[in-house]
């Protein structure tokens, strides 16, 4: 009989809705070894194929079984430079864990949690300062400071290139800092990762917008090569009536106020935020879950997710959907907003919604929802948060003639991450549209390789 998957210890559900501390507490050493022991160390490990950066999963797990966590983290770090982040936020159930042989019986090895354990173990001990490589004399500009850029910068600095990172905001980390809340990804982890790349010699410039202070055109002349990891930060709205009313936020604004500006500590921190009583979040992805759970922590009485498809189609990580439910978030599935109703002084009073039914599968294979006539109903709300997606930040495009961009606004690259401009590569959400941390990192890695090859030959 196979041992059961070790449950993740959590902060109590009632308790945690009143604070922004991390929800998942991490395995104890005993739990970590017990969970590691479930791995069969498959000869042909399927799990590895599910990991975008191909971590040697059975390898590091075998080292954990032997209690050798230092070796385990070294193995992980061969291909993944942000394990403390990935172990927490990767959608494991559709990546490594989905392909684990034990998944067929419903209980894959908790690969992400084990990875997190190793990373946290190392963090507690203090990460050794990296040795700087011999300088190549080549200079590379990295635009943005999200996971794609952090990965590219680290890999390029390790090769001995002089890397300068330019970030528009006053803090680094990209979505890891302004989007994903503290209770899911403590900011100290992101800060440590940035500290690490600084120790590698990367010159990090915040408050620096490419397209404004300098154009891409100038950058590619000043540097030997450029990497663009500018993300997909432009929020989409639905275009329905009432969307500009007071109390309607994009998830980006809501989360930026909470995370980057620490509005949850208002007035000690000066950035205000509206603490609604009845909050509606439109959307079903990680962003929607994060916004809903943040609103709850800000003191809302009732927070609902309004999503036009069904439970199975929710794009958010399963674990976070479960956490959200445990915390009391209401899921109004197969429901779509039609318009936002206006109260006094141009504020929000409620949202008129319509019930949806799943129709025939569309090109993507997903069954697309169709509205059910006559099912309109009103849900009371004073705050509405729109979390229906984002598209690439367009600011980089001013002064970047020759950079090929798709009709969706994504930067076009070839299979080696090269853009249409000679010494410029790109990767992450700026290329794919909103995706995942690990895919952005994978792209940063690939681009670093391409740039490195290019610099060696030029």
């Amino acid at each position: 009989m196979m041992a059961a998957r070790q449950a993740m210890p959590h902060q109590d559900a009632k308790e945690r809705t009143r604070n922004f501390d991390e929800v998942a507490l991490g395995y104890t050493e005993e739990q970590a070894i017990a969970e590691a022991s479930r791995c069969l160390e498959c000869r042909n490990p399927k799990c590895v194929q599910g990991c975008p950066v191909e971590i040697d999963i059975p390898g590091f797990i075998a080292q954990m079984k032997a209690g050798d966590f230092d070796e385990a983290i070294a193995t992980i770090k061969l291909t993944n430079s942000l394990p403390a982040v990935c172990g927490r936020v990767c959608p494991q159930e559709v990546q490594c864990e989905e392909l684990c042989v034990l998944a067929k019986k419903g209980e894959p090895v908790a690969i992400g949690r084990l990875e997190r354990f190793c990373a946290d173990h190392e963090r507690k001990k203090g990460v050794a300062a990296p040795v700087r490589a011999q300088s190549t004399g080549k200079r590379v500009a990295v635009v943005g400071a999200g996971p794609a850029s952090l990965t590219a910068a680290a890999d390029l600095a390790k090769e001995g290139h002089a890397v300068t990172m330019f970030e528009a905001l006053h803090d680094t980390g990209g979505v890891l800092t302004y989007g994903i809340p503290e209770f899911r990804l403590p900011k100290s982890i992101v800060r440590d990762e940035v500290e690490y790349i600084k120790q590698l010699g990367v010159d990090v410039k915040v408050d620096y917008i490419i397209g404004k202070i300098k154009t891409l055109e100038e950058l590619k002349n000043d540097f030997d090569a450029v990497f663009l990891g500018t993300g997909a930060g432009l929020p989409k709205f639905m275009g329905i009536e009432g969307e500009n009313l007071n109390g309607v936020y994009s998830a980006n604004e809501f989360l930026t106020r909470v995370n980057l500006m620490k509005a949850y500590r208002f007035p000690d921190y000066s950035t205000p935020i509206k603490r609604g009583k009845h909050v509606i979040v439109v959307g079903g992805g990680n962003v929607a879950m994060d916004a809903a759970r943040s609103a709850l922590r800000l003191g809302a009485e009732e927070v609902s997710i309004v999503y036009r498809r069904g439970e199975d189609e929710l794009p958010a990580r399963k674990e976070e959907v479960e956490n959200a439910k445990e915390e009391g978030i209401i899921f109004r599935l197969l429901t779509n907003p039609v318009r936002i109703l206006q109260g006094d002084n141009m504020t929000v009073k409620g949202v008129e919604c319509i019930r949806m039914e799943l129709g025939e599968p569309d090109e993507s294979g997903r069954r697309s929802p169709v509205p059910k006539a006559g099912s309109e109903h009103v849900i009371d709300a004073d705050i509405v948060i729109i979390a229906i997606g984002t598209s690439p930040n367009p600011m980089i495009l001013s002064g970047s003639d020759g950079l090929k961009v798709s009709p969706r606004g994504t930067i076009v690259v070839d299979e080696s991450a090269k853009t249409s401009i000679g010494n410029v590569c790109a990767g992450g959400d700026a290329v794919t549209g909103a995706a995942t941390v690990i895919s952005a990192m994978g792209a940063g890695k690939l681009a670093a390789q391409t740039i490195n090859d290019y610099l060696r030959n030029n």
Partner: protein
Amino acid sequence: MSYTILEKKQIAPQVHLMKVLAPDVAKAAKAGQFIILRIDETSERIPLTIADFDADEGYVTIIFQEMGKTTKQLAQMTDRDVLLDFVGPLGKPADVRKLGTVILVGGGVGIAPVYPQVKAYRDAGNKVISVIGARNKDLLILEDEMQAASDELYIATDDGSKGHHGFVTDVAKKILDSGEKIARIVVIGPPILMKVAAGMTAPYGVETIVSLNPIMIDGTGMCGGCRVSVGGETKFACVDGPEFDAHKVDFNLLMSRLGLYRPEEAQCQENHQCTCRSGN
């Protein structure tokens, strides 16, 4: 990052001028653009228009009015203090071209953002008629600078303590009525002034440009908090603006959104006053 205040002086009651060392911003700045600053770790990000800049000396001048917690805190700072963040230049530059004769109208601290535009329109070969106004003569800023930069300067005060007794829009209307061919009017000031000006110029069919000041955070197009409605379309003022066609702007929406955080702002100030030795 950190940005040193080279010089700070009070230029009118509750109105201050600050020169901030920010060479990269100064080098790239153009009339019509703005910066966002953060004083310290717990501070909010606030947008202020670039009132002047010197690429050689590497500084940017801002002029701000004490409104609430952050601008009051900023007013307490002095020469050689440092600001934690100062990012820009943000927004699209003003669309300055040779058009003929243009009227530039500045109300209150709105005179500050008008000033670099006066210079830019002049440099582009236009005849510039400036109209500036304030509640009273003490609140009138940059009078000498505006005098020097403009072809003609008119003044209006609400209480008649200087120039025309009344509003800047009255003066601008007189100029339009005089029959002189005006190619464009630029109006910057409180939203209510810009709204009134838009209504005033509409019958004349003169192109009218306003610079909108909705609540902003990032200033990079990432949050959508600064959205305004222009010609029925939603625009993000920080990247699509801040300048728009006055005749298409929904000013009522702008004004209502500007009031969104009044209760929080009041609370914020109360808390702040207990802990700081603000003399204002």
